[in-house]
């Protein structure tokens, strides 16, 4: 079906390459839009059930169209631009938050044969690109010309920098075992053996904590700690621009969840069901745990957050890496 669509597009004068690009972007955008709607709904439902409520029930069956309604509301809202902003940066920031996430989504192999973009060093590129959105978040905070926003931005930057290191180190220990930085080969290595979560439980936990912080989710949601910072870096944003941040956050959750599934849970591998379905199931399982955590734990204080990363996670990750290196090296 996809092939047919591509041929049709190519016939419109786009050429093979152009058709692939257009089709890929359209597919990813479409799916991600659906995903955000679904995730917001899921978050509301899960939080409701954890608190023994029902959550949205009215719009659509079990409230499934509630977020669509919310989206329509946000679209209809007036887009405000505060007076003293750095206008260009202010407008650019929400877009720039979203675009890297989109690129990330295209890098994850969705089945044994397909990925939208396949690179030999997919993992490095993925982590490199995720660094860009940090800059974008800071741009948002800075351009708003609002002290809460700047504080939120700064916090976000320090937090993401601190937690990127354990993510990287945890991923590296997986790379050591898989002997490749290509995401597909990492999954193939798991197909030959067991999912890496069994070989690298510590790295798995570190990675999970890291992506929770990377997506600014509770208990690490310091950058938007509403009780102290109003809304953090997106305080001054409204309407569709605000929705972009929301969009990016939930997309990021899914993408990093999928990355976690790829690195630790065996990616698309699984019996009976087709690969992409398995990948999605695993990614959503990761996301579910993140949501579950959000509605369980209170927010950390900022200094606790930083010392947790620098004094606990990074040393543990380093030790884990060294042990892995010896184990891998000793096995050869």
């Amino acid at each position, binding site marked *: 079906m996809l092939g047919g669509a591509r041929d049709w597009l190519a016939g419109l004068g786009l050429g093979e390459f152009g058709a692939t690009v257009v089709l890929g972007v359209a597919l990813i955008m479409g799916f991600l839009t659906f995903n955000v709607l679904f995730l917001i709904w899921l978050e509301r439902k899960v939080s409701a*059930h954890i608190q023994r409520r029902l959550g949205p029930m009215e719009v659509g069956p079990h409230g499934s169209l509630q977020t669509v309604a919310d989206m329509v509301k946000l679209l209809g809202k007036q887009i405000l631009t505060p007076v003293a902003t750095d206008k260009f940066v202010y407008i650019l920031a929400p877009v720039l938050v979203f675009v890297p996430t989109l690129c990330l989504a295209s890098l994850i192999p969705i089945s044994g044969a397909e990925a939208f973009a396949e690179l030999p060093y997919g993992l490095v590129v993925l982590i490199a690109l995720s660094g860009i959105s940090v800059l974008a978040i800071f741009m948002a905070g800075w351009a708003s010309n609002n002290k809460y926003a700047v504080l939120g931005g700064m916090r976000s930057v320090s937090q993401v920098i601190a937690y990127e290191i354990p993510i990287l180190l945890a991923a590296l220990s997986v790379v050591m075992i898989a002997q490749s930085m290509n995401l597909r080969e990492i999954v193939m290595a798991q197909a030959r053996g067991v999912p890496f979560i069994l070989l690298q439980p510590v790295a798995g936990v570190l990675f999970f904590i890291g992506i929770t912080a990377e997506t600014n989710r509770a208990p690490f949601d310091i950058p938007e700690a509403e009780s102290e910072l109003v809304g953090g870096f997106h305080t001054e944003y409204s309407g569709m621009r605000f929705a972009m941040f929301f969009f990016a956050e939930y997309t990021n959750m899914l993408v990093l969840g999928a990355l976690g599934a790829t690195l630790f849970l065996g990616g698309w591998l699984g019996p009976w069901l087709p690969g992409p379905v398995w990948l999605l199931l695993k990614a959503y399982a990761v996301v579910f745990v993140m949501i579950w955590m959000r509605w*369980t734990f209170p927010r950390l204080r900022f200094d606790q957050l930083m010392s947790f990363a620098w004094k606990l996670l990074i040393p543990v990750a380093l030790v884990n890496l060294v042990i892995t290196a010896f184990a891998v090296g000793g096995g050869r």
Partner: protein
Amino acid sequence: MTIVRRVWVGAKSLLIGLGVTGRHFFRKPVTLQYPHEKPDVSHWGGPIELKTFPETGTHDCIACNACTRICPSECIDIEGKRPEGSKKMRATKFALDFSTCSLCGLCVDVCPTDTLQYSQRYDESMYTRPATVNDLLKPFGEDPYLTGKLT
């Protein structure tokens, strides 16, 4: 070594926390879908209403004003009329002001004919101030005593 213990205890407590919320996740929600399902309020005492006795098919308010006197909020206003050829009065108006009634139930206790009782209505709503004053006799229509159908 304390650091190891702290990490262990911390991790354990986090897992316990997740366990608590996880258990709640699978329990039945306590929410009621209100407009679609109505709660059971049989144990609940709402604003008062006049009882209908099966043997007469109507209430038995004799406009004795016992309730008017005892009411701490002075929210009951009764008018009565003696039917022809009867010793007992019959109420012609039993106005209850919901906006001041405190549901204390003294009127129910004091009623000599036991014709006052708690209703089970809970979703009353009104849009004007005069609407808060309701005549409890309204559902009964014509009084059979006054029209002479009963004596």
